[in-house]
């Protein structure tokens, strides 16, 4: 049963780590605005898609050359 001491210590450390992550994410402002990023991701997606297509095209060209 003494193994429980080790397990307990390990799980507790893990929990503390998560707590620290959580607190630092609050500090970095991750929870300040819960709405805009959800909309923003759509725009960025479209933009990167465009650039991807462009990249793809230029890539094709290089292979044909």
């Amino acid at each position, binding site marked *: *049963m003494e193994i*429980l*001491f080790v397990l*307990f210590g390990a799980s*507790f450390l893990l*929990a503390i780590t998560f*707590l620290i992550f*959580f*607190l630092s994410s*609050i*500090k970095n402002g991750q*929870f*300040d*605005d*819960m*709405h*805009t990023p959800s*909309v*923003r991701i*759509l*725009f960025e997606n*479209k933009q990167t898609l465009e650039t991807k297509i462009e990249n793809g095209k230029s890539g094709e060209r290089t292979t044909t050359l």
Partner: protein
Amino acid sequence: MPPVINTIISTCYHCGEKCEQDSVSSGDHLFCCTGCMTVYEILENNGLCEYYDFEKNPGINPTKSFDHKRWEFLDDKKIQKQLTDYLSDTLVIVSFNIPGMHCSSCIYLLENLSRIAKGVLSSEVNFLKKEITIKFDPREISLRKVVETLLSIGYSPEINLNNSEKNKASGQNKKIVYQIGIAGFCFGNIMILSLPEYFDFKSLLTIDFIHLFRYVNILLIIPVLVFSASDYFRNSWYALKNLRSNMDVAVTIGIVGLAVQSFYDVLSGHGGGFFDSLSGLIFFLLVGRFFQQKTFQALSFDRDYKSYFPLAITRAKGNEEKSINVNDLMIGDDIIVHNRELIPADSILEKGEAFIDYSFVTGESRAVLCSEGDLIYAGGRNMGPRLKLKIIKTVSQSYLTRLWNDKAFNKDEQTGVSIWANSLSNYFMVGVILIAAATGIYWKIHNPALVMRSVTAVLIVACPCVLALSIPFTFGQIMRIMGKKGLYLKNAQSIEKLAAIDTIVFDKTGTLTSTDNNDSTFGSSLLPEEKNWVAAAASQSMHPVSRLLKEENTNPEYYPITNWEETIGAGIKATVNGNEIKIGKKEFVSQEITSDDTDDNSFGKTYISVNGIIKTGFAPIQKLREDIEALAQSLKSKFRMYILSGDNDAQQSTLEKYFTKENLYFRQSPQQKLEFIEDLQGSGQNVMMIGDGLNDAGALKASNFGITVTNDIHSFTPSADAILDINNMGLLPKFTSLAKDTKKIVLGALVFSILYNCIGLSFAVRGNLQPWVAAILMPVSSISVVLYTRLASIVAAKRNKLY
């Protein structure tokens, strides 16, 4: 491509408004005006037409948001310093409120500002706060240019002195998230570590484990008590210091009772204590408090009068004109006030004549004519061409500022503290102390060993957490329901104030009358051509009635005007396109006295004649709202009603139909309104004041419950408890009755609380409160109360037809 005149009725591609005859088109798209088309072309040239893909007709008509302000003052270094968050030679960070932001297309456009304006490095939007943070390189683009770019695409930023005062509320908001995070973490871990105490695992584990778990629990509870619960301790300490008692005191007694008992149990080796219940209690209470904060985060209310004053004004010194900060104005300075600008400080008119609109100050909708040497008060709006004024009082000593500094505005308010909660918790505490005392005396006689244990158990279990949770959750829910229907409350306390109202005082202009509904019948009896002549003649005058007439002109065309002449206080005479037009008082327009003139109705009316024939007579007064009768009828039985108007008594007879004659007051100055409210309160009435503007500010603030009615819920006036969308005035009776129902819901929660306490107390008084009983009872009671309040609020809203 050249704009093409189009006659097909359609909606504007940019803003979605109906396109009238004079619509324009660019490419395949129709626009209601050139403003909208310009925005489209800017976007097209910058490859931002994706803007139109996210939402249909997302645009804002730029002419609507453009408010004729001048922006030179943004070049002033001192003002820049006040407005910006960060300022250096290579980088400027500035944030603005943009009330016009309304959809995802807006976010797209505003975040791509760098593609429209060269020099903007990045822009980031916080949609819920309607805020944009812009980073730009001042070597490439000036602050003024950034603001003008925003204006050119229809998003007018709010720029006022308040921008410069940094917002501290967000820091407060973060603190509670930290507190909840810590409390939740400790709560979860304490629960796990307490499990062996509830079940008979003890036999499986060695005594070392039990001790380890208990001491780790002590370690975990310390941050909860010291950090997470600190606000409760602080609030109750302040309350006790002032010899008052509130909900936080009751909560603190519960927390301290639990903590002392638990520490004693663990340190003396008696048992595991109640750490799990304690951390859970604090966690749930904090969640309730967070919910309450979140509900009114979307509205930031506390704006002061400074928001309404111009930030800068043009000062003339010799031949040099310079834009300076209004706070730098000195007595004796000469200032230039352009058309539609506000006058920042009491001053004297140096040259010529001026039309000043004091509706901000007095509510009187007609502009006042001032001549050379007249005193002009701060808050007036220049309705004519530019004026030169000499300052005689500094901004802070002017008439309006003094009114706003009246004691009513400095009324000390304890925000967020619920009156009901406090009075209920007082009864609650008295009850708990009586039960604890009775229990103590009983065990003193029968079994002295159990005295301490049973008394602390009573204090622990009778914690008013159910009560503390039910109020924020009920109020939050009700506030959201009201918000959906156009009534935005300042804080939770407002609901209690609203429920207590027995008297309603209305302002007239803009509240009972509606601005979109001007009585402009003059057009109907004129031919379209004649209408244009009249408008052309009127456009030369600064008189407010003339301005009204001018706006009626839909199709501006040039007409030669000769013999234009204005007789102050009578009317205008002009020859337009060879036709003689007269606008003005009846005796001015027509020399003959007809029998009609004895008619009282001719007073205050404006007459128009074309070539000597009177075409029409109309009174440029505002029409009463259409739903006024229904509103007055439904409120009559429950409330005493008064009308205080800063305007003249032109509408007295109409209003008498709906309101008691003795309760109508006209030509009231802001100070009189304030005093009237205070008189009513002096006679023991709970007064609700409904007004629309700054001139009511004193009265709104002094009243028990002040409502500002507005078309634009984002442009608040200060000092109100609530903001009501003007189109929802008719729902007022329903709002008041919902507020009264809210009280019943809270009382229902009290019944719940008593029920749970009876169960808990039945264990406690027997000196038999096991940790597992507390650990089950507390979360179950909290969750069931939250569910109950949610359901009950929806039922109440449905009954009042508000959901």
